[in-house]
């Protein structure tokens, strides 16, 4: 069944049949509806940051439906019987590889503008599975997926390293960071980016949780919520990553799993996980901004006002595609006295350019930098010096580009500024428990 072809240039062989089979396996009414609905109006280009940054028509999101449409047609259309629906070729896959991986963050802006309402992101997600099955995809993304499976985290954060880190952070910052607590209401997870690059974010989350008197813990059985299996199109790795968190939650008896500042981690765990496992999750999944907003609503979060001017970058998977846009504003309301919305903002905010694993693709760095110019313009228009996000992946993407351009603005994290302004003089909520 598998027809492996080896190109003469010695590149690794591409298994077109495997890609087609993967697509067939993912066939659903939803997918086929999207594939067949595009009217080629081209409006999605205007919404895509990759097109906006490069003005290259190749980056029109509508084109990202093409390979899968072709494969599907070749397998389903009566036209195929009379030879009018050619099969997907190796060349098709090679030529479009970068469209499916490097230049799509699955941010969903194109879906917003699409008059047909086509969810291009979901087709890209299926396409990634097919391309990965064929042996395509950026090696660093694939490696990150493998590392997730083998070491527990894409950046090699093994359970041992996690324990070391937590110990060190707790000591360094004089904060209580529970790990593998036997019984907890809340299982907090990490994104390896935070652990490795922004450890202060872990400390901030711990401070906030402790401040509100939450019975929470990290777990060495399941801690990494960033799912590079999902982003790489490797469903089996995606499943392993989810199962680890499910097991860890079960072990502590937690009813709530809190996802840290990572957009795709939230999107996958909150919405994709149950569908990948094929069963509903036995616990609720909250993003840290949602969870903190819950605490604020319960009166358990007491903050000192913050006067610094700043603006907020909405992570796509949390705002536009996550439904938690309002919670970030709720947290800032009454706390940040000089909060400035950028334009467009909220559900319409531009993507950082690094979502969907693009951040992890070294070869996509150039285009990411180009995309970041959009963000720079947005921020500069607000007059604020500081750019805050609730996603460490966005933050890393933006930090890298900031360095590339020597952009003089500050880039920070929502949980960190909240933790920095905790009012610990009175802790009625904690006292009450």
């Amino acid at each position: 069944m598998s027809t492996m072809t080896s190109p003469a240039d010695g590149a690794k062989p591409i298994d077109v049949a495997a890609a087609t089979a993967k697509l067939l396996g993912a066939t659903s009414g939803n997918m086929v509806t999207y594939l067949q609905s595009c009217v080629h109006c081209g409006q999605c280009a205007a919404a895509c940051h990759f097109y906006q940054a490069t003005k290259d028509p190749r980056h029109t999101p509508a084109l990202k439906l093409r390979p899968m449409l072709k494969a599907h047609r070749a397998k389903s259309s009566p036209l195929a019987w009379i030879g009018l629906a050619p099969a997907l070729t190796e060349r098709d896959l090679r030529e479009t590889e970068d469209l499916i991986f490097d230049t799509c963050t699955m941010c969903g802006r194109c879906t917003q503008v699409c008059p047909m309402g086509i969810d291009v992101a979901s087709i890209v997600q299926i396409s990634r599975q097919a391309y990965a099955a064929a042996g395509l995809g950026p090696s660093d993304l694939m490696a990150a997926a493998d590392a997730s499976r083998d070491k527990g985290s894409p950046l090699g954060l093994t359970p041992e390293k996690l324990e070391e880190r937590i110990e060190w952070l707790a000591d360094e910052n004089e904060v209580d960071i529970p790990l593998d607590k036997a019984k907890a209401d809340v299982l907090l997870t990490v994104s390896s980016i935070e652990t490795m690059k922004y450890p202060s974010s872990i400390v901030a989350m711990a401070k906030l949780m402790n401040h509100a008197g939450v019975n929470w813990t990290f777990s060495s059985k399941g801690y990494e919520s960033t799912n590079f299996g999902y982003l790489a199109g490797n469903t089996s790795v995606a499943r392993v990553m989810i199962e680890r968190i499910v097991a860890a939650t079960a072990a502590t008896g937690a009813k709530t799993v809190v996802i840290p500042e990572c957009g795709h981690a939230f999107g996958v765990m909150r919405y994709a996980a149950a569908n990948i496992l094929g069963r509903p999750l036995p616990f609720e999944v909250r993003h840290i901004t949602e969870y903190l907003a819950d605490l604020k609503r319960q009166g358990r979060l007491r903050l000192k006002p913050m006067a610094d001017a700043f603006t907020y970058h909405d992570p796509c998977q949390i705002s536009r595609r996550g439904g938690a846009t309002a919670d970030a504003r709720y947290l800032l309301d009454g706390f940040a006295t000089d909060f400035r919305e950028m334009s467009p903002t909220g559900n319409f905010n531009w993507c950082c350019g690094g979502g969907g694993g693009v951040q992890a693709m070294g070869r996509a760095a150039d285009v990411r930098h180009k995309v970041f110019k959009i963000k720079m313009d947005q921020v500069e228009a607000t007059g604020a010096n500081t750019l805050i996000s609730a996603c460490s992946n966005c933050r890393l993407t933006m930090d890298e580009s900031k360095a590339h351009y020597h952009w003089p603005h500050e880039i920070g994290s929502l949980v960190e500024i909240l933790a920095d302004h905790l009012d610990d003089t009175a802790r009625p909520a904690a006292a009450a428990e």
Partner: protein
Amino acid sequence: MREDKTLAQALESRGVSRRAFLKYASYVATLMALPPSASRVIAEELAKARRQSVIWLSFQECTGCTESITRSMSPTLEDLIFDFISLDYHHTLQAVSGAAAEHARTEAMKANKGKYIVVVDGSVPLKDGGVYSTIAGITNLDMLKETAKDAFAVVSVGTCAAFGGIPHANPNPTGAVAISEIITDKPVVNIPGCPPIPEAMTGTLAYLLSFGKLPELDAKGRPLAFFGETIHDRCYRRPFYERGMFANSFDDEGARKGWCLYKVGCKGPIAYNACATLKWNGGASFPIQSGHGCLGCSEPGFWDKGGFYEPLAAATAKLDIGVGAAAVAGVAAGAAAAELMRRKKSAAVDAANSKKKDG
């Protein structure tokens, strides 16, 4: 029978002046939409012409065409045409009958060989050897061929002769055909209509007499002068059409107010004829003026165009059982395709699973 005297001389003796020719000529020029300057030429040519021998053959018809051309009781200018022609054979109008009548026909053919005009009303049945219509034991087909052989031109009068007409309507039991399907070796003018407008017949004959040739014809062999525009083009109710004011039935407000009859089946837009301008019965009225839509009787197959009261825009195609069947077949085929896809999907998933197990 052709006479040696010119028409002018013949009429002169009856005290008819050249002014009458001039007046008749200006009438014909108007009818045929010729430039006013042509009327002097017509007048001169007519005056010089000799009486034209005409042999009138009636086949599968209802005599309505003859009624139409002879409808007038008092002699009028239009009737001058009968002074211009010598109707040598017309079995309804001529006094003699039987062998004498047929003799008159053959005599006229002999005497005016190559110069006489054959006027035909009625279609010719071809089925079963043409037995469905015979005259003096001769089938219409044979008589037409024989008579037309030495004619100068053939004029098909009425829709039956021009296009097969009502005898030709589905299922055409006699195998009726138009004259032009039989006479292919000489000019044939079609003056359709059920019946044709008398002026269209007399005008065409006058033109033939004056100019010795056929007037300009359209693709269906009809003189453009009478059949160049549709009823709709010249209909006095056209402004109502433009304004979207229609009668929805024959007894509603719109019908009483004389609004456009398009919706109740008027075929005016595709009927080429001069009824709206020449009108009928001495200019008294025409069907639309009398409150009925045009049937399009001057068009081929007018009997079989999906009902006189069906609007022109309505398709003769129907949302019939076949369309339902096509939809059902489509659903069935679609279901099969979906099922096929479902199986391909399961097979792909199973293959992936077994591969994983093997791996």
